[in-house]
């Protein structure tokens, strides 16, 4: 059973459909007791970092999530849900994150050149595997759909599971540390590659 944390930030329709499509059993929880009982968690999310953290705090979810991860419950963060795993976020001011992966979420590197990658980064990107790729289950050469303006700067390079090349720089877009993993892309919007990625998480024991 996959427990999807619903804290009022983002549209879970497509994630529900994708989990149904791969035959995964899933439930949504809105409060800490649901997280305490979970054996596998997904932390989704869209919007701004600070506001998303507020959504978790308002529902008393921060400590239950941190405790679940301390117990070794696998958790996958998606999009802003991945960003929240980090120590801090710099979107609209400085905000504390869940601090499960050391690092800071910053604005994507900008460039003034004519053929610059534009921000937000919207579209499909090939993910280059990082040191922790195996823990996340990203296939070499797989392409996923992104829409974001911020991405983490990871303190410990060993935590990086995948990067994209953006304005000439390698940007971390997938991380794994202990039982926690996170991806900036939207697997539920990434066609067959995204469904395969979710299936690998669902099947993980």
């Amino acid at each position: 059973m996959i427990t999807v944390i619903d804290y009022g930030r983002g549209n879970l329709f497509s994630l529900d459909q994708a989990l149904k499509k791969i035959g995964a059993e899933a439930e949504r929880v809105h409060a800490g007791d649901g997280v305490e009982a979970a054996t596998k968690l997904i932390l989704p999310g869209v919007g701004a970092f600070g506001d998303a953290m507020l959504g978790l705090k308002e529902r008393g979810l921060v400590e239950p999530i941190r405790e679940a991860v301390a117990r070794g419950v696998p958790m996958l963060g998606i999009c802003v849900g991945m960003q929240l795993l980090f120590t801090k976020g710099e979107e609209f001011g400085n905000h504390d994150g869940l601090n499960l992966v050391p690092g800071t979420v910053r604005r994507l590197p900008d460039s003034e050149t004519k053929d610059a990658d534009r921000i937000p980064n919207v579209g499909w990107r090939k993910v280059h595997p990082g040191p922790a790729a195996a823990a996340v289950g990203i296939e070499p050469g797989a392409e996923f759909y992104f829409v974001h303006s911020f991405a983490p700067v990871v303190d410990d390079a060993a935590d990086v599971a995948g990067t994209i090349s953006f304005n000439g720089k390698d940007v971390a877009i997938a991380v794994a540390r202990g039982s926690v993993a996170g991806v900036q892309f939207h697997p539920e919007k990434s066609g067959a590659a995204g469904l395969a990625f979710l299936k690998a998480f669902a099947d993980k024991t």
Partner: protein
Amino acid sequence: MTPVRILARLDVKSQNVIKGIHLEGLRVIGKPFDLATKYYADGADEIVYMDTVASLYGRSNILPVVQQAAEDIFVPLTVGGGIRTEADIVAALRSGADKVAINTAAIKDPNFLTRGANALGSQCITLSIEAKSRGAGKWEALTDNGREMTGVDVLEWAKQGEGLGAGEILLTSVDQEGTQTGFDIDLIGLVRDAVRIPVIAAGGAGKAAHVIDMIKETGCDAVCCASIFHYGKLDIPDLKRAIADAGFEVRL
């Protein structure tokens, strides 16, 4: 350079996909679900649904169509036509859409873009601009699926829309739309240079060379096609292979 995105557009009227020339003279092409399923299997990077009569009649029937698609199609879906209020945006997102394309309602009340972006994020607010040539270097924004003049200058409107919170611009040349004779390169290049958000070029693709020339000339990295796919002149895998062969990155 950013990988090129290929979007397939479905103009929907009374449960059918239709297509015309210059947004007029409409023909029935097929059922939305069948076409969307085919384009998804073919590798469309996104699918755009346009309710062609919603602006005219003030109502939208497209959401059940989108919801059915979202149960089986796992690429981003955009819904346009008849999006007038924040409640309309929420309803579209709840039906499985990822973005809404807004034209008429934004021209009438530009701050609608800001309200939508603040409530739901810029990433889901696409400003749809229908551009009609008014002499060299001048285009007027039309509304109501190309039916109504506004007097609004396209370049100014694109810049204003970006400032108001649009996350992307879907730019359709009404002059080229449905003609399959190539893109309005001047329009696309000027709009793209005027803003820093992604621009999706639409209107006029008749063969792969049109798309490749447009990308080369303008740097625009997203293109939205309808007729070329509907009439089977070029399928998505062939178009993508041609773009890759021309030296651009694309998801194959």
